[in-house]
Structure formats: structure tokens, C-alpha cells
């Protein structure tokens, strides 16, 4: 019990009273006493009694004359009042002048208190009802009488009031006495006691609330339930007429005094007994629903459960209570929602059916108001409402069985009203500011809507639920999202949009995002860029999982792709939005490009899809462009590899293939973006194709510096030779017998040739495909209109010509990669004999070609982009030199016996012909190669060499022909071809039996 009457003197006095033998007064004396008491004059001495003596006299009578009880108690009221006045006066003057009086009275009050508490202790049954009524009544009278005093705090501040009154001996004593009575009476009749308390409370409300609150905190269990029952009764008798006023919190309810008191009291108690209050509120709710609750022994006394009228009023009453005190309502709401299981809902419906329509409407409004004002649990409430209101057939998941139809309709209605209400709140809120431009926004602060405030943190969940697309439900949720976005401003709106973009899994779901945007776009600008920026930020912070990331990218891609469709079809708000998406994405391209190399194939695939379809930004820094191109190219090779692996695994083939297509598309678009990107893309494509890691894709072998395939260390036996050792011994043991280089290239002398590694070549068909794809990319890049913008609007069947500049880039890169030594070297060819000086380099070049089959197709591409092949001159020469050496040394019967060399010779010559380094007559010689002996091949190749030596492969010799749209070389300007054709004719002649059909090819 928290009411402690702190006063050891009091206890001492009490004990002294009980122990001192009471001097029994004679009847005469008693008679005198009574006379004195009545007249206030000492009958013996004939002088006026002081307040103190008078009170003493009263106490004596109380002890000895039972019949004086009422009168004495009545007199004591005056004494208490006197003390309170003195006390307050003392406080007001803040002087110590009157302490004498007050302490005097304080002392008599303690005496009185001692007597009363002794009586109560000795015979609670007789005294407790009497004293409790008296004390409560007096307390009420005192509190309201002195409520207007200057020192008395306003009645709304319960705690201050409590402090004031508990520091006053009189009121404290009364409170103590009442507590004692209540403690005694709780056992047998708490009702009478509490009813008196509440009656007084009503009479003296709100000044009396502190008493109830204090008592309540001492006896929470009893008081809380009683206070509520009392409030309910009062509410019921007042009817629902006043309810309307309170719905919107307009009127604080002077017309309903009791409920105000109830709220005040409970509010005070809530500080320490919120749990009991919560339980009690819930209990009241439950009890009110039980149609035939057998009166339990505990509830029989309170008895509001037994009256159907009161039970019906319980729910409106609780709502009203909640509306008036958010403190009370807050903690209850969550549990309440838990309670509302279908059977309870049915009961509730049954109870509410009996109410008139107007009242129901009021209640509905109240509920809506409550929900919108509840600061916590809103998400749960809303989910509950949506769950319940969703038509049964659509409830797919969820543990709750389908609710009754009536309940469902009720919830449906409630939900719609809630949304409507929120709508009003949200839009009035902003309107209010606009209507009064004179008032600054600060003077009229934006009204906070706690429900939405709280839901702001649940945007993600809401989005997820919305996206489930359950029939009615997602409409509500969507509406709520809109409201939430408007309420929360751009940040919330952005988040919602972001969430939708991240979580949507198919076009229907994605459409929700656009719907949301359409709704919001009217009042919010720049939503989409913000959303994209936010997504990008999320990407940077790695807050999205791979799956979400992928979904986001795909959704964006889908959005942009729809743009293309829209462009053809109808245009409207959506298309403008799509355009916005496109531009926003393009602004963040460089943020997306790292995703191309994301570890998860799905993500990188999604990224490539997005990038491949997103428009490119108008301006972009070179660094970003380079970064982009690098990523794109790397991704290209990655997809090729994945496709190969996927093909092996037999799954995801389609996706990998699509990824390749996208990648190709991306590269080509990107290459077309600017000369810089074109150059960078091509360079990297070529480099990548020749890169060690990628060679196997194109059927190549990993080559070492010399161009020869490197044996894997585990395979090659250790021959015990080390170049380092040799070099260390260089000074001492001079070994000039042969060149160090040659020794180590072919193997160590004395140990035979180096073992060639047998690398496992990938599936040839795959290789061919890969090469085809690579070529396609390069061709696409090269033929795009990026460089000169001279794309001829010719018919689409004919592939566009390969751009010369692009081809040059390829050529230069190729040369750099095949043999860096000869990069930027002289283009013109020396005499054939000089080739002996470059044997080493030539071998390197040849091995390169051997290791990278992709080189020949690349050369062909270059050749097509005349005059780019000229820049490959050194490489061509080196290759031709080694071929000449081979054919010269070859002792085979036919050229077909060395197939690679034959093929290389054919390809080389045809390339040179395509690149117009050779005139057609010479270029056709390769057709004869397979039918000739090695020596004859050498003769023909020599003729080729001679021609090139004579007519150097200079780009200046090419002129642009506008009708063909490409560069061409006019061979007539060069020297006579005839003299180079002579060996051809000789060979033809010699082998006329086999080559007759080719003769026409070599006519001049």
C-alpha cells in the first residue's frame, strides 16, 4: 500500500491514546461536555473554547457518547477545513507567521486521526463505512472549495495537486483514514466504498480526481475496475448523444463529466499500473461480448456485466475512453487486435447489431479516428482489417479462417472509411498551408497523423503485401501507399517506389509502381530520378541481396523497354514516366556498370539487360566511359564463357544466350556512342580475345612470350636447365656455340625438343560459335555509324560497310598484341632476303597465329575495312616470311601435307586480297595452293612478296569512293602487274592438268 501516513508522532500519539487508561467521565461531566461542545463555550469556566479545545472536546465525545458521532464528525469537518485554509494561506503568504496556528491544528488533526484509525482498527465493520463516506465527502468538499486558491495548481495537473494535498496534514490524514477503511472494507463490501468515492468524484470533478487517482494507485485492482464500471454506467445513462461532439476531439466533454474523470484517473494510474489497466480494459471488452457469461463470483459485485444495456454500451464506451486518452489506448490496441479472432468478431457483430444506425456510424467514425491517431501498432491493425475484409475466396494464405460475411462487410466499410479519413487528413493538411499563405508554415504546424507516421517504417512490408495482388486488398494497400507517400513527402514516396521497383516480379506487379507514380506525380516532382538515385545508393551500400538487385535491374529494364513499345503505340503519362526512368537510369549508368561483373550471373545478366536497353547519357566523362567499356567487354567475355559452361551443363543455355545477345547489343550501342568508346571497345575486344584467359574460348592455346604454347608446369618434366644459371656462368664459361635464345626456345641442346603440351581444346563447334559472336560484335561495332556518321541508308539486307577508322583500331590493336616490336614500324616491305634478319620475330608471329586461330578472322575483318590492313603490314610480312621458309624447307610431296601452313597461306593471301594489298590476280593464287607442291606454293608466295615489296601497302593509295561508301585502291596507278604474274602462269602451265579450271582466275 503506497499510502503511508508519514508521521511517527502520530503513531506515538495513537499508542499513547490506546494505552492511557481512559478516565471514564461521569454522566454529569458528559452532560457538561455535550453542552460545551454544542455551545462552544466552556460551561465550567464560562469562556469561549478555542478551535483546538473545541476539537478536543469533540474527540472526547466521540470516545464516550455514541450518539454524538454524527455531530462530532460534522464538527470535525470544520476543523479540517480550518486547517486547510491555514495551510494554504501559509503557502500563499510564504511566511512563517502563521505556523503556530497551523501546527496547533496539525497536532489536533493528528489526534483526531489517531482516534479514528483506532476505531477503524478495532471495529472495521462498524466504522469503515462511516468514516470512509465522511472522509471522501470531506475531501471532495475541501478540494473543490479550495480549488480556486492561488497556490492550488490547475485541476488538470494531477500530480501537482496530489503533491499539494498530500503535504497538507488534514487532507493527508483524511486520505490515510480512507485508505484504511478501504483496506478494511475490501474484504466484504468494496463496492459501497468505491461508489461513494466515485459519486463524490462526479460531484466535485475535476478537483477531486487526485483523490481517486491516489486511492487508485493504492488499490489498483479494485479501483480500476470500479472506476471503469462506474464510467460505463454513466456513459450509458448519458447515452450516445454527446458522443458526436467528442469524436473529433473538439469538445473535451464538459457534458460528460464522469468519463473525463475516468480518463483522468486512469491516466494517472497508467503511469504505474498500465498493465492492470490494460488487462481491465481488455477484460471489459471481452466480458461485454460474452452473451451468457455466467456471473463469476468476482464480477457479481460489479454487475455491469449482467445488464444487457450496459454490455452493449461497453464497446462504445471503451472507444470513447480510448479516444479521450491515447495513453490508455496505445498499449491496448495491439492486444486488442490479437483478441479479434473470428469467434470474437462474430460476438462483436452480434452485440453491435442491436445498436441504432446513427450510433453505429458514430462508432465507426470514432474507430477511424482512433486508428488514424494511434501511434503504434498501426501496421498490425491495418493488416488485420485488410485480412478480415478480404473476400473469403481470395484469402489464399493466412491462418485465420474466413470470417463471417457480415463481419467482412463491416471491416470493408471500416477500411474504406479509414482510407477516406486519411485521405482527408493528408490532403487537408497541405491545403491548410496553401490556403493561408500569410501564415508561415511554422505557425500552423503540419498536423501529425500518428497512424501514417508509424506506418512510414513499414513501407517495405506494405509494398510487399500490395504486390501480392490479392483482389481487393492490393487496392486498399495501394491507396494507403499513396496516402503514405503524400504524407511522408518525397522521401517516403521515393522509398515506396523503390520498394515496388525492387519487389515487383512481373509486369502486373510492376504496373503498381507506375500507378503509384501516376498518382503521386501530380503533387510531387522528380520522383523517379529520386527513386533511381535511391536504388543506386542501395546498390552502393550493398543493402540489396542478389535476388532483389536482379529484380530491380530487370524491372528497370522492363520499364525502359516498354518505352520502345510505347513509342510505337499510345503515348501518355506513362510514356513520359518511362522517359523519365530512361533518363534517370542513363544518368546512373556508370553506377550500374560494376554490376555487370557481379558474381551472381543472374545479377550481371539483369544488369546487361538494363544497360543494353537504357539510353546512353548525353554527356559522360571519359573516365566513366572507359570504365563502362571495360566492364562491358569483360562482361562480354564472361558471358561467352558462361554460355560455354552452361551449354555443357545443359541448362541456362537460353539465358546465357540471351545474355550474350544483350552483351553484344550493349557493346555495339556503346561503341556507336562516341569515337572514344568505339576505340576503347574495339581495343579491349581484341585484347580480350587474345588474352591468355580467353584464348581457349576461341580455340587458342595459351602462348608464352615467344608465341609458343606454354606447357603446364606439372606436365613438363624438369630438364634441369635454367637460363639464370647459364647467365651466371656467362663470364666464366663462354658458350657461343649457339644462341642462348634459340637454345631455350626449342629446348635444351642435348635434351631434344621441348615437349609440346597437348591442351584440351574446347568443343570446336563452340569455338566456332564464339568466334562468330566475337566477329559479329566487332563487325557491328565497326560498322556502326559512330565515327563518321556516314552510314548510308542502303537496304537493310546488305550489311553496312566496315568503318575504316574502326578497322584501323582493330588492326593497330592486333599488331600491338601479336608483336609489340613491330608496332608503328615501317609499312613498306623489304626484299625477301632481308627476312633472314627477322627470323626470330617472324617465328613469334607465326606461333601467335598458330596459338590464336581467331587472328585470321580478325584479319579478315580488318581487311574488310580498307585500308586498315595496311597497318598490319609488319605482321603480314612476318607471317609470310615464315611461310616462305616453311615451304622452302618442306620436302613433302604436296602442300596439303602441311595443313596449317597451307591454310595459313590461303587465308593470308585472301586477306591481303580483300584488303586490296594485292590485286585480284595475285589474290586469287591461294585457290591454287592446295593443288600444288610446297615449292610451287613458295614460288607463288614469293611472287606475292615481290608485288608487295614493289607496291607498298600504303593507306594513301586508297581513295574514298562515295558510291561504294568505302575506300578503294586503284591498282592501275601502280606498276604493271604482269611481271609478278609470270611465275603464276608458269605454275599454271606446269600443272595445267589439274589447274585448268583456275586459269581464268589469273587473267589479267
Amino acid at each position, binding site marked *: 500500500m503506497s499510502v503511508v501516513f508519514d508521521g511517527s508522532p502520530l503513531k506515538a500519539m495513537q499508542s499513547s491514546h490506546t494505552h492511557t487508561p481512559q478516565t471514564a467521565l461521569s454522566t454529569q461531566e458528559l*452532560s457538561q461536555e*455535550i*453542552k460545551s461542545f454544542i455551545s462552544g463555550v466552556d460551561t465550567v469556566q464560562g469562556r469561549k473554547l478555542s478551535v483546538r479545545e473545541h476539537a478536543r472536546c469533540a474527540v472526547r465525545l466521540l470516545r*464516550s457518547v455514541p450518539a454524538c458521532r454524527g455531530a462530532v464528525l*460534522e464538527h470535525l469537518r470544520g476543523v479540517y477545513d480550518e486547517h486547510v485554509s491555514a495551510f494554504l494561506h501559509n503557502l500563499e503568504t510564504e511566511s512563517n507567521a502563521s505556523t503556530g496556528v497551523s501546527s496547533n491544528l496539525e497536532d489536533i488533526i493528528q489526534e483526531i486521526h489517531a482516534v479514528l484509525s483506532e476505531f477503524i482498527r478495532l471495529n472495521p465493520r*462498524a466504522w469503515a463505512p462511516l468514516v470512509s463516506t465522511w472522509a471522501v465527502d470531506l475531501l471532495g468538499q475541501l478540494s473543490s472549495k479550495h480549488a480556486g486558491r492561488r497556490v492550488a495548481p490547475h485541476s488538470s495537473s494531477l500530480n501537482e495537486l496530489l503533491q499539494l494535498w498530500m503535504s497538507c496534514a488534514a487532507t493527508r490524514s483524511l486520505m490515510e483514514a480512507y485508505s484504511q477503511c478501504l483496506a478494511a472494507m475490501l474484504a466484504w463490501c468494496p463496492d459501497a466504498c468505491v461508489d461513494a468515492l466515485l459519486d463524490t468524484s462526479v460531484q466535485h470533478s475535476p478537483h477531486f480526481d487526485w483523490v481517486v487517482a491516489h486511492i487508485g494507485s493504492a488499490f489498483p485492482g479494485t479501483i480500476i475496475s470500479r472506476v471503469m464500471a462506474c464510467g460505463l454506467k454513466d456513459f450509458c445513462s448519458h447515452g450516445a448523444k454527446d458522443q458526436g461532439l467528442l469524436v473529433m476531439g473538439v469538445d473535451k466533454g464538459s457534458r460528460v463529466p464522469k468519463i473525463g474523470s475516468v480518463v483522468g484517473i486512469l491516466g494517472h494510474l497508467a503511469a504505474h499500473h498500465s498493465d492492470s489497466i490494460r488487462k481491465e480494459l481488455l477484460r471489459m471488452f471481452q466480458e461485454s461480448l460474452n452473451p451468457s457469461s455466467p456471473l463469476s463470483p468476482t464480477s457479481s459485485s460489479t454487475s455491469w456485466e449482467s445488464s444487457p444495456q450496459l454490455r452493449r454500451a461497453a464497446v462504445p464506451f471503451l472507444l470513447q475512453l480510448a479516444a479521450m486518452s491515447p495513453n490508455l489506448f496505445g498499449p491496448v490496441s495491439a492486444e486488442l487486435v490479437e483478441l479479434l479472432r473470428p469467434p470474437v468478431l462474430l460476438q462483436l457483430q452480434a452485440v453491435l447489431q442491436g445498436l441504432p444506425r446513427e450510433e453505429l456510424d458514430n462508432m465507426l467514425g470514432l474507430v477511424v479516428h482512433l486508428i488514424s491517431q494511434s501511434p503504434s501498432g498501426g501496421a498490425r491493425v491495418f493488416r488485420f482489417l485488410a485480412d478480415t475484409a478480404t473476400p473469403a475466396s481470395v484469402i489464399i494464405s493466412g491462418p485465420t479462417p474466413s470470417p463471417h460475411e457480415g463481419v467482412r462487410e463491416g471491416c470493408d466499410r471500416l477500411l474504406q472509411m479509414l482510407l477516406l479519413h486519411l485521405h482527408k487528413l493528408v490532403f487537408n493538411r497541405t491545403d491548410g498551408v496553401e490556403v493561408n499563405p500569410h501564415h508561415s508554415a511554422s505557425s500552423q504546424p503540419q498536423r501529425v497523423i500518428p497512424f501514417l507516421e508509424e506506418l512510414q517504417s513499414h513501407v517495405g512490408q506494405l509494398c510487399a503485401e500490395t504486390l501480392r495482388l490479392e483482389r481487393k486488398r492490393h487496392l486498399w494497400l495501394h491507396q494507403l501507399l499513396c496516402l503514405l507517400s503524400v504524407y511522408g513527402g518525397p522521401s517516403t514516396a521515393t522509398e515506396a517506389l523503390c520498394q515496388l521497383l525492387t519487389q515487383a516480379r512481373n509486369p502486373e506487379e510492376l504496373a503498381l509502381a507506375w500507378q503509384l507514380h501516376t498518382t503521386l506525380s501530380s503533387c510531387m516532382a522528380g520522383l523517379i530520378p529520386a527513386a533511381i538515385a535511391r536504388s543506386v545508393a542501395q546498390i552502393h551500400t550493398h543493402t540489396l541481396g542478389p535476388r532483389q538487385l536482379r529484380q530491380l535491374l530487370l524491372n528497370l529494364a522492363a520499364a525502359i523497354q516498354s518505352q520502345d513499345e510505347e513509342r510505337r503505340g499510345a503515348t501518355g503519362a506513362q510514356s513520359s514516366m518511362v522517359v523519365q526512368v530512361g533518363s534517370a537510369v542513363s544518368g546512373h549508368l556508370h553506377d550500374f556498370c560494376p554490376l555487370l561483373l557481379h558474381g551472381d550471373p543472374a545479377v550481371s545478366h539483369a544488369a546487361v539487360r538494363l544497360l543494353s536497353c537504357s539510353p546512353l547519357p548525353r554527356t559522360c566523362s571519359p573516365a566513366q566511359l572507359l570504365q563502362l567499356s571495360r566492364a562491358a567487354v569483360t562482361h562480354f567475355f564472361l558471358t561467352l564463357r558462361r554460355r560455354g559452361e552452361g551449354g555443357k551443363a545443359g541448362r541456362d543455355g537460353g539465358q546465357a544466350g540471351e545474355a550474350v545477345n544483350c552483351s553484344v547489343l550493349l557493346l555495339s550501342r556503346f561503341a556507336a556512342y562516341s569515337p572514344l568508346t568505339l576505340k576503347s571497345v574495339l581495343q579491349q575486344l581484341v585484347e580480350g580475345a587474345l588474352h591468355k584467359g580467353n584464348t581457349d574460348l576461341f580455340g587458342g592455346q595459351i602462348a608464352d612470350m615467344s608465341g609458343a604454347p606454354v606447357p603446364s608446369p606439372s606436365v613438363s618434366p624438369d630438364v634441369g636447365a635454367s637460363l639464370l644459371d647459364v647467365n651466371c656462368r656467362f663470364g666464366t664459361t663462354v658458350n657461343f656455340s649457339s644462341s642462348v635464345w634459340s637454345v631455350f626456345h626449342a629446348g635444351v641442346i642435348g635434351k631434344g625438343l621441348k615437349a609440346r603440351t597437348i591442351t584440351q581444346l574446347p568443343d570446336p563447334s563452340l569455338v566456332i560459335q564464339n568466334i562468330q559472336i566475337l566477329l559479329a560484335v566487332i563487325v557491328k561495332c565497326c560498322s556502326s555509324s559512330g565515327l563518321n556518321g556516314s552510314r548510308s541508308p542502303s537496304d537493310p539486307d546488305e550489311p553496312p560497310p566496315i568503318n575504316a577508322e574502326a578497322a584501323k583500331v582493330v588492326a593497330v590493336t592486333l599488331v600491338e598484341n601479336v608483336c609489340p616490336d613491330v608496332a608503328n614500324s615501317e609499312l613498306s616491305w623489304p626484299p625477301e632476303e632481308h627476312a633472314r634478319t627477322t627470323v626470330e620475330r617472324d617465328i613469334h608471329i607465326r606461333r601467335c597465329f598458330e596459338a590464336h586461330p581467331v587472328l585470321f578472322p580478325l584479319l579478315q575483318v580488318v581487311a574488310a575495312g580498307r585500308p586498315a590492313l595496311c597497318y598490319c603490314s609488319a605482321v603480314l610480312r612476318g607471317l609470310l616470311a615464315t611461310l616462305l621458309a616453311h615451304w622452302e624447307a618442306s620436302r613433302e610431296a604436296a602442300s596439303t601435307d602441311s595443313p596449317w601452313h597451307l591454310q595459313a597461306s590461303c587465308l593470308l593471301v585472301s586477306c591481303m586480297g580483300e584488303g586490296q594489298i594485292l590485286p585480284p590476280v595475285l589474290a586469287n593464287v591461294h585457290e591454287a595452293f592446295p593443288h600444288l607442291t610446297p615449292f610451287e606454293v613458295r614460288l607463288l608466295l614469293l611472287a606475292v612478296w615481290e608485288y608487295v615489296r614493289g607496291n607498298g601497302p600504303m593507306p594513301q593509295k586508297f581513295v574514298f569512293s562515295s558510291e561504294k561508301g568505302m575506300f578503294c585502291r586503284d591498282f592501275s596507278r601502280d606498276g604493271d602487274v604482269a611481271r609478278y604474274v609470270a611465275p603464276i602462269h608458269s605454275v599454271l602451265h606446269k600443272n595445267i592438268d589439274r589447274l585448268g579450271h583456275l586459269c581464268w582466275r589469273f587473267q589479267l
Partner: protein
Amino acid sequence: MGDIRQSLLPRDVLSAAKELLYHLDIYICNLVQSGRQPPQVDSKTLELVEEFILHAPKDRNTPARRMSALQELQLLEIMCSCFQEQSRDAVRQLMFAALFNLQGNQADESRMALLGKLVSMAIAVGRVPILECAATWLQRTHRVYCVRLAQVLVDDYCSMVPGSVPTLQNIHSASPRFCCQFITAVTTLYDFTSEELTPPLELLQMIVSWIQDDPHLVLITFLNSPISGSQPITSLDVTPLGGLVRWCIKAPLVYRRDKKQALTNGSSENEPEVGPLFSALHLSVLQVLMLLPNILNEKGLFGRLALLQMESLAALTSDLSRLLDQADKHTHTSSADTLALSQLALDRLAQALQVAMASGALLCSRGNSVEKWCRECLYIVVLLQLVLSGPVMYYNNIHTSPLAYSPHAAHSPIAPHPTLPALPTHRAHTPHAPLAPHPSSHPQYPAQPFMTGMPFPFRPSH
């Protein structure tokens, strides 16, 4: 008298009442002096009393005036002195009657309230005249109201104000008549039917000490009042004897029950034992009964006036059998105690009956009525016996059909007992004899045959 109403109306409550009392005094003095027989206060005056002293609402449209407790106290004080100062007893009685005789209207409630306070105050300040008037009032009024007055006094002095019992005790010396009536009312009030209706210990002690000091006290009303047929039938008994006999007989069983409850409730055990008090009371009652023949003979009423009413004794026996029934249900728990106490109650009943019949307080033709009681008593005694001696079957048989199933039909306990009136005397001197059988002996001992002529075949309890 009625014409003063107009002058009273504008006065404040207290002075109006005061003035009315003053006028009433004069009016009654005149009435008595006029010698009209019987002196009768007219109804106009009674209405005035109701309006200005009791503040009963006169009609609906005038709001009832109320006195504050202080004013009421002043009024009481004035009344006290008024009665004290009035020397003529007849005037006092008339005035008291005018003020407090019940009129059967709605003023009766406030009348009773005021009366309770007045008497309570008179006791405190020793106003004998008021007590005397109240004694008369108690004789004439319906017992229900008498009981209420007694209740107020007991509440005031025995429970509300601790340490005020001595004040109440003084009424014995102040007004024996009132004291006697008070005892009668109290014994009527507390009939042991519930816990609330069990007399407080202080009251019991007080009554016992009163009667022990002066047994004649019980008969004072009887001695002082003329025996006439004017006594309303609904008023209290002339003497408290009937009530006291009831107390003594019921007490053992009731207090046993209470004690058991107290034990289970774990309440304090340090209260003095009430048993001896009731024993003393019983003895006193028997002594008073023994006094009766002389007094009755003096008055020439012996055999003509029944101080103990037959009906009340009949009610008592039925109550007793019910109590024994209840006691029987608890036999298996504390049979020894129960049996001893039951026996005590029966013994007291028998003694009281015998002495009352002998002293002429109880008038009964030695015919059917006594026969009937004896039979009832016999039932009870047999019941006891069977409980003591044997299987439960007996018990059932007796209560359903005495002869039908009993294997011992030959020894049917129902046989009328010729020696019944003397029966208790065998045991009277040993009311606390160890009667308890061995608690676990029932299965071991087969049914003890009931011996005719051996009324209490108790087994030895060792």
C-alpha cells in the same frame, strides 16, 4: 396547538423544533391537568411533531428540511433536559409517546433514528426519566422496533465506541425496568441463527453479570406491570426468560460451530471462553425459575400465566434438532467434542423444561403437547445413541421408516420412553462426562443392541 404552525414555519430548523417542544410540554401539561381520561394527544399535534421535529416531508412540493448533525445533537440535548426537568411522570410518558410512538407512516424511520440517538445519549449522560419512558415504549411497541432499538444501543456501546461498555452497564442501576426490557429485546434479537445474530461477547458478559447480581432483574417488568390483557400480542415478552433459555440451550452447539469456523479462518483464539458464561447464565435462569412459584402464588397466578410460551419452546426444539443434525454431519471429524456439546444442549433443554414445568412457568397439560416434545427429544436422544453406537444404517432407518429395515427391529429405539422426563437427570450432574467413543471403533464393533431401560448405553471411552 395546530395554529402555531404558521409561526414555526419561518423559523430555522432547530429553533422551530425547540419551540414545538416547548409548546408540546405546555400542551401536555394542560392535557393532564384537564384530567380527561384517557389523555390523548390529538393528531394535529402529532403532525406538527412529524413536521418540525422528525422532518418528515409534509407533502411533495415542500422540500424536506433537514437538520445537520450538530443541530440534531442540540435537539437531543434539549430533549434530554426537557424530560429531565419535567417532574410529572405522566406528562413525560405522554410526551414521549407523542414523540416516539409509532404511527405507521413514513415518519417512523426518522422517529426510530431519533429515538435511538436519544436513548443512546440518555444512557451516556444518565437521564433516567428517558430510560423509564423508553422502558414503557419497549413494552408497548411491536417487537420488531424494539429489536431495532436494542440493535442501535448494542452497536453504539458494544461495537462502535470501544470502552463504552461500562456506560451501558450502568443502566442496570439507573433504570432496572429499562434494563429488563433491554435484555428481553436483546435476547429476541440475537437468536443465534447467523453470525450477525450472535450476541457480542461484551453484551453477554454484561447480561450475565446483571442477572447474577440480581436475578430479580429479569422479572422486574413482570412484577411492576399490571397483568392485563392490554399487552399487545406483538410486543416483547414480559420477561426475557424465554430468550435466555433459548440462548443457553443453543449456545453450546452454535459456539462450537463458530469455533470451528474460527479455527478454519485462523482468527484469534484468545477470546475468553463463552461456555462458562452460558453455564452461569443457565444457572441463573434456573434460579429465576425457581423463584417463580412464590411470586406467582403471591399474585395468584400460578398455573394461570405462562411466562414461557409453548410455541417458542416448540420452535426451540425444532431449531435444536436442526442444529444437532448439522452437528451430526461433522461427527466424523470431531465426534468427541460434538457429542459432548450436543449432550450439554440436550441436558440444558431437559433441565429447563423440567424446572419450568415444575415452577409453573410453562403451562402444559400433561397430555399431548408434552408427549410430543418428549417424542422429539427422544428422537434426538436416540439419534445420539445410534451415532455413538453403530452403523450409519440405523441413522438412515430411523429417518426413513423406523421399523422397516432395521435388523434390530426388536429393539426399536422408537418405542416411547416412559421415563423420559427423568431422563436427563441421570446425566445432569455430569454434563461434561467423556462421551466420545473411540473414533475408529465403528467397523470393529458390531452394532450395539439398544437396551430398553438402559437409556444411555455408552461404551466406556478408554
